[in-house]
């Protein structure tokens, strides 16, 4: 009995039931078509228009292409012309859309009524109120707190504050104060240079999470993958990457070697390496060496080895490798720049670069980061002190939420401020405690600019009409309050006259302006600056200075607070994409956790999910335990981002606020110490962690193959170390007849003839696990976010997931981790297809495992039969407006991609290589009377990937990149022994040294 016949029989017996339920089917509601009054320029219905603008989710200033359909932006992609992100974009950048369409946005100006309730008021009244309050507060203290504003809006705030006698304080919870101070100590300049990862041959990161939140993560990850990716055709060797830090962060997971130095000793290690380079004369000794000789001598490897916790000969080896590479790059950041001695550590790492002769080569002063202009934590605490002393009569806040990052002190101080104004788009902690809220436009709705690094002038233009017409550009409000005429765009253009004079090359301003708009800005090279060791550099080394003030042990552990890659300092917490994005390391969603080493956990007798009380001298939080080998036994680690008291439905009252554990007193370099001592107490409570992790170990299943570099180099063209025999003989025999039948079927009808075979190659030597692809998939394919409860029941809808497996770690061997993207493999011989009783899962002529949503009846046989577990079932109606599981409450539904069906309850869904993009490219090619070319189609994941690890194309086109990569000797198929014949070729990860066991 074949499947059709089976169904016919079933249909006859179940007919009565079907007839009864058929009454429920209602006619489609009448749709109305409302024409435009005047058609908008550059808009073709059904076709996307792209506008260049700039991402404002962090200070990196990546270029964006905003995809606009029928006047609404539906996706954000990287601008390939931007010298910062090269067309790539991280998860946070893509999720800016969910800030724009956030259902918790403030829609109109509001003021606090007499009994504390919010009252709407008109903009005229609101601005009059602002003017009156400003006048009143003159001379009594006015302060304007903003996030990092490196462009015209910041200048406007400066100018206005100057006029009214106030001060402008920049508040960035991660402002890299130690980096600036460390550079000042070493080189006499607080500038933050550009680090040339792409041309580095040996990279040592002292805590710097340059793939997560450090300075410019997309740019640096892109550069890193160029240096560290394996390219058999390249002369130079693949760069080696050593990560030094107390915890194996996402960045560290890509390392060839993880050195878990004792917290606070990173500087000693750097100086010890420098000592080896100088004493062994591994690099030309700089003329001004004398200034640091004493420091180096005090930190000889033998003297610091015990404190750092590694052997002296390891330090010597690292130093020799670093120097011998002739392209060493050492970077300091993350937790290494957040101890009390963070600035000294940065200075020490600078010295290491300097003695190796790399300053000016891989460390480029000149194209400096704008972050050097960010305020410091000390400025903020000074402000808080003045506020508490009643010296601030008017406080304005824009783009900063110190009420969350400095919870206790700032909230208390706010009570002493006369009048509080917020320009926030959301009722975050700071806005909620304000008297007047003047909701700003979202960055995607407004004019502005930023200068992320010297020489890069990035423009921001409104890519659509404001979602809420009652919101107004903060710059315009300020201009009006200051009594200036003209719009903010006029102001912006007036600031750009200067850029025009420098870079206009004889063109008129309008032409220059339009050109800059089209390209997202003006990109110029910044001249290199030479730096020398400063006189102060002797401060860089005092090996006896205690980093922490106590020696951490499992009984008195050091607690490290690290920035969450998704939520950052907490600004991403009200975006469901970012909440549901599994943390790349812990794989936990929607909640915070505390990382505990297995030995420590055993000692305390706690299991994963057990809630412990973390008590620091400054605050207490309750956190669920997550046990990981990727943290030192004497260190605990918690992420920032959660624990909001306000902000919105996704963020509020969720998990704990890690900032509550930190001291409010600035460090000597003006930053904030992100490490504290904690007392830990078990509570007996337990929380089921909403994790997407299956197994922490790969168990030798061949999901991720790893090659040592020496072996990878030997591989000749045509060699296939992973595919000598993909199908075991017994499977061959068993399947022979069936396979023949399959082939015969496949030659029927329109399956015959010339068709492409869509395929993908994923280079694991480049993939870092950053998960930008995951968010891209959510955005492109209308994936529902299901919430914490359903994730904990394994009902997340992530078509593409990043699997992370730990390696080694037993018997004293260093722990490592490997990652791989796992998505539908588009099997040539797919187990999901033959089990579908209704042909909803079927094989398309172009080789995809198609999924016809309107056919699917939800038997879930396909998901049961899928060995890769990449099919996802709609257990609820996530699109139902007002429904219990609604994923896109209005106006979040505006970001839905109109080219992709929104699936209903009872339907199975899966990755189809972004089939809508394939069909779109085919339609375009047909219109232009040509064939689809290699490179015409880029799935969303491949487009976002900051390390360019994913290549898509047609396997039948022998000239395509993917066809070449499919033949790469490093290529292998996951679970190839099942004879599924996947279309995805993974290229084995390549490591320096030996391969760690799974």
């Amino acid at each position, binding site marked *: 009995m074949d499947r059709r016949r089976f169904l016919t029989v079933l249909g006859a017996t179940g007919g009565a039931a079907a007839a009864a339920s058929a009454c429920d089917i209602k006619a*489609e509601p*009448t*749709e*109305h*078509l*409302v*024409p*435009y*009054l*005047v*058609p*908008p*320029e*550059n*808009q*073709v*219905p*059904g*076709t996307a228009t792209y506008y260049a603008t700039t991402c404002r989710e962090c200070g990196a200033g990546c270029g964006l292409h905003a995809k606009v*359909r*029928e*006047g*609404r932006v539906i996706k954000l992609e990287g601008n390939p012309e931007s010298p910062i992100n090269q067309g790539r974009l991280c998860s946070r950048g893509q999720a800016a859309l969910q800030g724009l369409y956030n259902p918790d946005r403030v829609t109109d100006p509001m003021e606090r009524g007499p009994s504390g309730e919010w009252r709407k008021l008109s903009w005229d009244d609101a601005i009059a109120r602002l003017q009156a309050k400003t006048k009143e507060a003159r001379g009594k203290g006015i302060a304007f707190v903003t996030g990092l504003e490196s462009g015209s809006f910041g200048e406007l705030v400066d100018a206005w504050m100057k006029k009214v006698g106030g001060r402008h304080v920049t508040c960035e919870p991660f402002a890299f104060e130690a980096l600036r101070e460390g550079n000042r100590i070493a080189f006499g300049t607080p500038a933050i240079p550009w680090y040339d990862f792409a041309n580095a041959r040996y990279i040592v990161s002292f805590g710097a999470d340059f793939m997560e939140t450090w300075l410019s993560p997309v740019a640096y990850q892109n550069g890193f993958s160029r240096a560290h990716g394996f390219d058999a055709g390249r002369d130079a060797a693949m760069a080696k990457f050593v990560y030094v830090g107390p915890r194996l962060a996402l960045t560290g997971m890509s390392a060839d070697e993880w050195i878990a130095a004792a917290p606070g000793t990173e500087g000693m290690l750097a100086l010890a390496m420098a000592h080896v380079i100088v004493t062994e004369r591994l690099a030309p000794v700089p003329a001004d060496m004398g200034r640091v000789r004493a420091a180096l001598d005090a930190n000889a490897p033998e003297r610091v080895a015990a404190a750092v916790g590694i052997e002296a000969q390891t330090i010597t080896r690292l130093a020799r490798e670093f120097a011998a590479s002739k392209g060493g790059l050492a970077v300091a950041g993350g937790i290494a720049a957040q101890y009390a001695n963070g600035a000294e550590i940065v200075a020490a790492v600078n010295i290491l670069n300097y003695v190796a002769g790399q300053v000016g080569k891989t460390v480029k002063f000149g194209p400096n980061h704008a972050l050097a202009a960010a305020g410091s934590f000390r400025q903020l605490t000074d402000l808080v002190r003045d506020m508490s002393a009643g010296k601030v009569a008017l406080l304005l806040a824009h783009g900063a939420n110190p009420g969350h990052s400095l919870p206790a002190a700032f909230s208390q101080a706010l009570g002493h401020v006369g009048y509080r104004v917020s320009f926030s788009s959301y009722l975050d902690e700071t806005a909620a405690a304000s008297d007047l809220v003047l909701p700003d436009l979202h960055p995607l709705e407004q004019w502005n600019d930023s200068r992320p690094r010297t020489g890069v002038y990035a423009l921001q233009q409104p890519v659509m009409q404001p979602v809420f017409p009652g919101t107004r550009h903060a710059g315009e409000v300020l201009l009006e309050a200051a009594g200036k005429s003209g719009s903010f765009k006029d102001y912006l253009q007036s600031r750009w006259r200067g850029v025009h004079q420098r870079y206009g090359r004889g063109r008129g301003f309008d032409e220059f302006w339009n050109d800059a708009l089209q390209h997202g800005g003006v990109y110029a090279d910044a001249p290199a600056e030479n730096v020398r060791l400063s006189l102060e550099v002797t401060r860089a080394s005092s090996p006896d200075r205690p980093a922490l003030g106590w020696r951490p042990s499992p009984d008195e552990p050091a607690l490290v607070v690290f920035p969450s890659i998704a939520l950052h300092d907490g600004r991403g917490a009200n975006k469901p994409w970012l909440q549901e994005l599994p943390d790349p390391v812990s794989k936990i969603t929607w909640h915070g956790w505390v990382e505990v080493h297995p030995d420590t956990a055993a000692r305390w007798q706690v299991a994963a999910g057990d809630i412990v009380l973390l008590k620091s001298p400054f605050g207490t939080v309750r956190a669920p335990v997550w046990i990981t080998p990727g943290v030192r036994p004497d260190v605990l680690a918690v992420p920032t981002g959660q624990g909001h008291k306000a902000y919105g439905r996704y963020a509020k009252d969720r998990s704990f606020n890690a900032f509550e554990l930190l001291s409010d007193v600035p460090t000597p370099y003006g930053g904030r110490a992100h490490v504290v001592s904690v007392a830990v107490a078990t509570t007996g409570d337990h929380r089921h962690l909403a994790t997407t992790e299956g197994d922490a170990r790969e168990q030798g299943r061949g999901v991720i193959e790893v090659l040592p570099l020496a072996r990878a180099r030997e591989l000749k063209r045509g060699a296939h170390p992973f595919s000598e025999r993909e199908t075991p003989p017994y499977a061959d025999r068993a399947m022979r007849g069936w396979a023949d039948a399959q082939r015969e079927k496949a030659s029927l*009808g*329109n399956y015959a003839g010339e068709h492409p075979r869509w395929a993908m190659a994923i280079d694991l030597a480049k993939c870092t696990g950053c998960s930008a692809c995951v968010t891209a998939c959510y955005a492109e394919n209308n994936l529902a976010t299901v919430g914490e409860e359903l994730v904990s029941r394994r009902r997340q809808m992530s078509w593409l997931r990043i699997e992370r497996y730990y390696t080694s770690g037993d018997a004293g061997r260093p722990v490592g981790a490997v990652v791989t993207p796992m998505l539908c493999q588009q099997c040539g011989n797919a187990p999901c297809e033959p089990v579908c009783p209704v042909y909803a899962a*079927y094989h*398309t*002529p*172009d080789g*995809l495992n*198609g999924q*016809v*949503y*309107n*056919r699917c009846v939800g038997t879930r046989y396909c998901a049961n039969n899928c060995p890769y577990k990449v099919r996802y079932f709609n257990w609820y109606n996530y*699109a139902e407006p007002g429904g219990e599981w609604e994923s*896109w409450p209005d106006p979040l*539904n505006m970001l*839905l*991609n*109109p*080219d*992709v*069906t*929104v*699936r*209903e309850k009872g*339907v199975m869904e899966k990755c*189809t290589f972004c*089939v*809508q993009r394939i*069909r779109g490219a085919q*339609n375009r090619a*047909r*219109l232009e009377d040509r064939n689809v070319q290699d490179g015409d189609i880029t799935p969303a994941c491949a487009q976002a990937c900051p390390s360019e690890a994913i290549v898509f194309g047609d396997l039948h086109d022998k000239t395509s990149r993917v066809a070449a990569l499919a033949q790469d000797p490093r290529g292998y198929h996951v679970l190839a022994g099942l004879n599924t014949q996947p279309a995805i070729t993974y290229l084995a990860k390549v490591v320096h040294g030996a391969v760690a066991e799974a």
Partner: protein
Amino acid sequence: MTKRSDRVGAGVAIALLIAFPVAAQTGQSAPTAKAPVISDTGRLQGPRQPVFFRHDVHAGQDQIPCLYCHNTVTISSEPGIPALQTCFGCHQMIGGSTPSHQAEIKKVREAWVNKRPPEWTRVHALPGFVRFPHQRHIKILGTESCINCHGDVRGMPQVYQFATLKMGWCITCHVQRNVSRDCTVCHY
């Protein structure tokens, strides 16, 4: 299955500067007969629209090509419905010859003045899980082929759904022309 994309806002981007009548250029073998006077609109097929826009007058009698108003049909998946500006472009001058025409044209002019475009009732709608790229069909079948699916609107005083637009009907044509019957050509 609900596609929550908004077709409602689908309008027209660029009014192509096609001078009309250009029926001669496009070789439209239209019934040049005068459109009939209609006394009983209640008997007409199709939904009643806010403005009694007569395709038989515009496309039939006056021989205005389809693309004059639905001008993105050759380049995009959506043909676009004309912006009110397009209507007003002509009806600024043309006021109508009979009282009934004048009454309808007045509605258009008022809509323009009040900036309230009429809310047309949609006649041809596909479910949200179906993609129909108009441009590909026009590319192959030519700009005269609208008739295949929409019927000969040159004879329709009020537009009604001419074809079932059901999948079997689509497939019949795809079989006849031996073009793709793959599911994911339309369903994704």
